[in-house]
């Protein structure tokens, strides 16, 4: 297993005594979807993996190595948010290049890496555009181009496509799935749309009250489960 999370506990400061606890593993080349009601802890789990939040206890291993003690930037993790992935005043090339070297002192190889990433996501020719000149789908493609150049082992998608229409969302999820398989990354996709999970993942976890209460093959979880919580969430009760 590439990403392994064990007994990862977290309690929001000042919150009620409910403690979140997660156990999970994601294989290389797999996109695991996380679904569940708002406030159930899906994004919190991603924030713990990325390092934006510090767990109270537990471990996060990537390829067998503990990463929970590492600073954010040194973790083998990259994240795509729903919005504000790009700096609005910088052109697309620079937005991607910041993912390679924050001082923007790029070698010829790194330049080529960025060109290739943009090319593979059909973004060539748009390098000098500012994010404001692009559609929502194109902006998320740029964020994915940065994922490519960063070459991290774990990809976190925090409702990354929630603001897009159904067709664009499906197109980008398919793209992500292919990218994850090709690069042998481990990906976690948080979404409110069960259909996203059906497209992206063979396995899906249902999160509620800070716990993963079901982790099953996606179709089975969404269409055949007897769990009241899941059926209530899906509206099929």
């Amino acid at each position, binding site marked *: 297993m590439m990403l392994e999370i064990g007994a990862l506990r977290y309690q*929001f*400061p*000042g919150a009620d005594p409910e403690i979140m606890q997660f156990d999970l593993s994601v294989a290389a080349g797999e996109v695991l979807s996380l679904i569940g009601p708002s406030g159930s802890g899906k994004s919190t789990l991603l*924030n713990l993996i*990325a*390092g*934006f939040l510090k767990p109270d206890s537990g471990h996060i291993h990537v390829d067998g190595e503990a990463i929970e003690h590492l600073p*954010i*930037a*040194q973790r083998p*993790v*990259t*994240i795509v*948010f729903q919005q*504000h*992935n790009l*700096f*609005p*005043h*910088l052109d697309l090339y*620079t937005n991607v290049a*910041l*993912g390679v070297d*924050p*001082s*923007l002192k790029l070698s010829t190889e790194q330049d080529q890496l960025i060109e290739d990433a943009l090319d593979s996501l059909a973004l060539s020719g748009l390098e000098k555009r500012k994010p404001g000149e692009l559609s929502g789908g194109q902006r998320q493609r740029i964020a994915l181009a940065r994922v490519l150049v960063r070459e991290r082992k774990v990809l976190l998608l925090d409702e990354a496509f929630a603001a897009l229409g159904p067709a664009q969302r499906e197109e980008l999820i398919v793209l992500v799935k292919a990218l994850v398989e090709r690069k042998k990354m481990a990906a976690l996709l948080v979404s409110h749309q069960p259909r996203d999970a059906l497209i992206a993942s063979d396995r899906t976890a249902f999160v509620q009250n800070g716990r993963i209460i079901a982790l099953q093959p996606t179709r089975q979880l969404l269409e055949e489960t007897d769990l009241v919580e899941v059926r209530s969430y899906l509206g099929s009760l």
Partner: protein
Amino acid sequence: MTQTERSAYLVIAILAVLVLAPMGGLLSLGRLPGFEPQDLQFWQSTYIRRVIFFSLWQALLSALLSVVPAILVARAFALNGNFPFRSLLLRLFGLPLVVPSVVAVMGIVSVYGSGGWIPLGRSLYGLNGILLAHVFFNLPLAVRLLLPLWQGIPRHHWELAEQMGFSGWHRWRYLEWPAIREGLPGVLLLVFMLCLTSFAVVLTLGGGPKSTTLEVAIYQSLRFDFDPVQAVVLALLQLSLCLLVAVVILKMQKLPEVEISISSPASESRDYRSLLNRLVILVAGIYVGLPLASLLIDALSGPLAQVVTNEYIWQSAGKTLMLGLGAAVLSVTAGWFLLGASSQLANRGQLRRARLVEISGSIIYVVPPLVLGTGTFVLLSDYIDVFSWVYPIVIVINAMMGLPFVIRSLGPAMRQNQMRYQNLCSSLALSGWNRFIFIDWPLLRRSIGLSAALVAALAMGDLGVIALFGTPNTATLPLLIYQQLGAYLIPQATATALLLLGLCLLVFWIIERYIGGKDDA
């Protein structure tokens, strides 16, 4: 603890020393020559009782006369989204924020003084003049504080009201009053506080002992009566009053964000055209514009050429510019670190600490410049010649005076930046210089430029601490104008005031344009 937080705590420590050391000076009253314990029984002094009463009375009247009409004017602006010159009038209402007090005083004298367009004769000097000047400054400020409260009313509420056939009274009762009532006491108290600590206006328009406030009384005790004991007692009284008002303001926590930019805010209100509303705006516009127009006319028809060819005046202008720029750099740097730390703490959910860090930048509201100046005077006068240290002292105190403005104008943009991009920057290892140069500077330079421009203009126009420590050799333009007024050289003072106004506006424009640049966000 991050680097920014460490820097912020250093700034707070410096601020604490700058405030507490002069306080130590004030509290070591007992060692001053001529001190008697009964000096502390201020309530037995008719003079001090009268000064306290007048300070509070003029501040109360000024606050009411500024804020009550401001409600009408802000409402008129909010409900009239598209009338000609709306934007120009809003710009005019931003102007008093950067017009030096002493320039406004010259404008007031030019309109209401003997020989002015609306002559009030000798009755201008005293409470009348003070109120006229305070309303000139604070009515536009209150309008700009209140206007966003109307603009915060959702568009759908206006549409619903229209659909349900609400009358004007019903709109006020159910939409407008609930939207403004929480912010109103905060605005009233802020204006009260500003008028309570007003110095230049009372110094120049006050009419002798019966129209003296605590601030001016402190100055007179130090510079004319050579009575540091009385100055310290008055400073301690002023400190207590300010502390009391500041605590009440903090308890309210409902002060709306001021739109400091002199550009006009976009109106989202419905366009309820009304002749009466326009008339209200017009009257307020004339009230604010008249002193400036009159000053301009008087100065141009006076000895302007003689003033602008005077080498001494240009030397004063150079000193004014140096003090303004020094204060701006210091204030924006300190504000940057305080806001950076506050935003980081808020992002981590430590809201109470974030607020405390931010509030520390507004300490000058509690400890007015004249009180600080008096403390510094008492503390240092035994060891150094304080008059030869005038520039550093004035720069530091003016930077502290500018800090609340930096926090209000730069704060919202920095908080938004932090909220949007902190996680992204962390995950991309963007920090320190790289983050500043690639992310923060391009996105925040407009707010930084505005803050720096505002502090520079305020510091250049300050007639407070410079009056306490300045000498003829170190006179800035505001002090020079005050000296010209004292010598009854009214035409020269008017011309110098126009020069100062021009310099302040020019510096404001240059900094805002060339540091602020175009909006990248």
